[in-house]
């Protein structure tokens, strides 16, 4: 008997189209999180926009974000959520707890026009751990800075950040493929 087992091809990806807004579940009442409430410290509020080649805001998209922290060099799951474009705030709003936040935020982007979803990460400019992060150091030098959200204000124990993800164009963000 051969030890080699033939691998099957995965089911191909297709676009989510424009009409997912009223169907999929968004903004889970409670983020799917392993954080204990009494350990929540400062909060992070990220105002995120997705832009296309012509710098237009992509509204018919949704984002899933995942947060992990590192313990003994292993990633431990903290949080998952799915969000859509907030028409009133004119952005995708991501609210996080800074507790044990010593790694980056994983994002998966789905949109009309995207035949495959996109993986990316976001770092935060005042949280200096990214400067030592092995993975960050290996990102293309000329585009690394496109992955860092900027702190714009700090109020009521909440840090407010702003960031634009560019799907295409001169400021194109770095996207990943996961093996």
């Amino acid at each position, binding site marked *: 008997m051969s030890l080699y087992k033939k691998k099957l091809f995965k089911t*191909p990806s297709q676009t989510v189209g424009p009409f997912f*807004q009223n169907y999929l*579940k968004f903004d889970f009442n409670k983020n799917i999180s392993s954080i204990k409430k009494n350990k929540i410290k400062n909060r992070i509020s990220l105002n995120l926009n997705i832009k296309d080649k012509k710098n237009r805001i992509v509204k018919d998209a949704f984002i899933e974000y995942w947060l992990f922290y590192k313990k003994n060099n292993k990633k431990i799951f903290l949080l998952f959520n799915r969000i859509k474009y907030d028409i009133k705030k004119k952005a995708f709003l991501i609210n996080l707890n800074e507790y044990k936040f010593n790694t980056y935020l994983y994002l998966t982007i789905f949109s009309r026009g995207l035949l495959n979803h996109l993986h990316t990460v976001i770092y935060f400019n005042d949280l200096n751990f990214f400067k030592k992060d092995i993975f960050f150091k290996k990102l293309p030098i000329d*585009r690394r800075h496109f992955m860092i959200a900027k702190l714009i204000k700090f109020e009521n124990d909440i840090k407010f950040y702003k960031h634009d993800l560019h799907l*295409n164009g001169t400021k*194109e963000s770095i*996207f990943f493929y996961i093996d």
Partner: protein
Amino acid sequence: MLSLKLSNYKIFTFMAQNYTSNPSHYFKAYKSNTDRAPKKKLIKIKNDINKRQLLSKLYKNFTINNNLLCFNKNKKPVGQKIVIKGNVTDTSGVPLKNIIIEIWQANASGKYRDKNDKHDATIDPNFYGYGVTKTNNIGNYKFISILPGAYPWNNHKNAWRPRHIHFSILDLNFFSRLCTQMYFPGDFLLNDDPIYNSIPKEHRNKVIAKYDNKKNKISNYLTFNFDIIL
């Protein structure tokens, strides 16, 4: 393919269309795609997350086993009633249990329950168009719905989307995340659809359901089988 070994990590740069049965990110015939698809090469990262941690927490936030896409059992939606069933496996053929599957679709006249859907067709008050379930211990799932209608769109002159159902498949983490569309066998609109045709030719049959009424136990329903490989 170029590979660079850098200390503990390997980072590969590659052309996206070479690694799976997925479409390439950029596909000119699909107009919405041209300003949104990334043009730079993607970077490969490795899966290093203990995905089992996520499982129980995810389920609390989905109303699992809502596999009937109508508003009300007693009020029948317009259209041909169908059963969609299938099996979810990994690439080695091992069945995957507890995979969350969400589907959404247009009604029988090709109309979505969405204010942005400008198609001149009627909303069916008895049809919602969304369902969610999870695979059982042997990787099987089932939905009960109606045959969705085709509808026109603005991609090119006289463009029509073939009948399709959107699938969102959430595994225990994002490494095997999949959003796809299930099409129906024999649909003549498939030939001119740029979204379907973005898939490499040899893999297009993987998104077409198979008509399979032999084991159907519900009368008056057409049964389609759609197996998914993550």
